[in-house]
């Protein structure tokens, strides 16, 4: 059993040798004459400015949230599909019940999607918020 991992170990070692070996060879062979221009970050000839830790637009996260939910819900369908094969052999009614349950699940998901759509969670350019969605800030001390 342990020997099964031997080729993985060899692979890991080879990877390490190749990567660090090339770096080492490059370091030994190349000449080193640093100038301020050479030490700057490579930006296709443009002089670099600002930090690379820019803030992503918050709208990416909003879309990602909606995607995340609907993406993961698919996992729920997986066991049903597996069981359906067995159900088919036992009884047709049973299979229909299972399909009905999944259908209900999907209907609820669709309602949720429509809701998110309608409320503007999928819009890239947000419409100004409706009067019912804006509440004043309260701070009871």
């Amino acid at each position, binding site marked *: 059993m342990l020997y099964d991992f031997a080729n993985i170990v060899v692979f890991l070692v080879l990877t390490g040798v190749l990567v660090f070996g090339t770096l080492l060879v490059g370091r030994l062979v190349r000449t080193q004459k640093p100038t301020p221009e050479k030490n700057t970050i490579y930006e296709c000839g443009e002089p670099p400015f600002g930090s690379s830790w820019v803030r992503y637009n918050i709208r990416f996260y909003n879309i990602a949230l909606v995607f995340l939910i609907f993406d993961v819900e698919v996992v729920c369908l997986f066991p049903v599909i597996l069981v359906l094969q*067995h*159900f088919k052999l*036992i*009884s047709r*009614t*049973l299979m229909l*019940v299972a399909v009905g349950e999944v259908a209900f699940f999907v209907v*609820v998901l669709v*309602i*949720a999607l*429509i*809701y998110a759509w*309608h409320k503007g969670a999928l819009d890239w350019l947000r419409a100004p918020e409706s009067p*019912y*969605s*804006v*509440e*004043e*800030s*309260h*701070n*009871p*001390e």
Partner: protein
Amino acid sequence: MQWTSGIIEQLPRDLSTIAPEIALVITILALILIDLLMRGEVSFSISFFAIIGVFISLHLLFNAFYNPAPSRTAFWGLLAVDKFTLFLKLIFLLSTFLVILLTLQSNLIYPYRVGEYYTLLLTATMAMCFLVSARNFILFYLALETLSISSYVLATYTKRDVFSTEAGLKYLIYGAAASAVMLFGISYLYGLTGTLDITAWVNVLTPVTSLTVLLALLLVFVGIAFKISAVPFHFWAPDVYQGAPTPITAYLSVASKIAGFGALFRVSLPLFTDLIIPGSKKILLMLGPYHFQFATFFWIISVITMTFGNLVALRQNNLKRLLAYSSIAHAGYILMGMTVLDAAALKAMLFYFLIYMFMNIGAFYCAIVLENKTRIGDITHYKGIVNEYPYLVVGFGVILFSLTGIPPFGGFIGKYLLFAAVVNKALSTPHAMFYFSLAIIGVLNSVISLYYYVRILKIMVLESPAKKIGVPWTPVESLLIAIFVIAIFYLFVLWTQPYVLIENVVKSIIV
């Protein structure tokens, strides 16, 4: 595939046992669709539909109560359908109804985005109903998480308010951590027992494995203790109770907490039953030596929880924060029943839930009214408010004295039953001092709590007002306060009526 036989025949009966929950689900979907389809001002009609949904669910619940199902379980042992579960569901639905009434009175939530609000509220209620009837860890965890996630969103509902967002974030982080730790415990229980049955740990509690089982149970208790805000898993409670919109605070402090206790009962049911069921010598022998260990554990948690809650509450000036610590202390009182672990204690705890629901939601209703009038949550600003709003102060006084547990109010009966259970146990076991000390600490704590409850009233009544507030008192406010006050007096004067019901309920799980 043995279990698939008879699956179709059982389905209608099984579905009928969860009729109240189905009604809630249909209401939830209907609310979303109404919110989507109707144009213009929909706040009132949505509130109306939510109340209708809760009432239909209550009606189905009463039906189930008076026509008990032939079997104790449904869906192949996944769900318990006994009167005990139905009683807890009754409390959840009633408190949801009261919270909807509070919402309609709260200036913070109503009428902003109420469609989502009621959807989440009813989802949480449905999750609680499933949580207390779960007999399988998958359903248990699923219900607990549904409840938690809905609560997180509800706590952060007033989203432009920094406090509310903070509350939601803290609740979520602590809650996610607690439930993840609980899940790790469940995974060990699964490995030890081989099933996900919620009470299967009894079968493996032998001297060889006891340490592992008890450790796994401790991890499971972390998740539950978080819900009931028992010390040391209470960190979230003060911040969340203060920051969340007040109706949600009421909901979390009552329904969510009682759901936590319901889950605790489900997991620890063998502890209640093993000494009582006649034909179960085997379980008796197995659990016998561990019984006292569990009692000791709950003794420690209970004493720490009530003492901590009461002592810290003494120093609070924010009304909602004070009530948060008071509700931590009440969790400690209820946990006294878990120390006793017999039928009398279970009855006392169920009665305490009933009265606690009216007292605590009532207290938060008064907080909402004060917030609406003054826009301030600090009790030092309520000086002499009795001159302007006498009804409010009288009603609040009744609720606060009831929370203390003073005789002419319902809270007294709740505490009396709990202490009676503890003292009776003390008289009937060799560990008399163990239980007597618990009762004495409980009484001392009640005395401490009197101080901070009365302090609120003292500020409101005895000190002279700084300036007039000038926001008029409305008849609806009188009506709602009257509901809570009447409920509190009813539970004092005619407490035997609900108590007979509770005896019935307890009989359904402990023969």
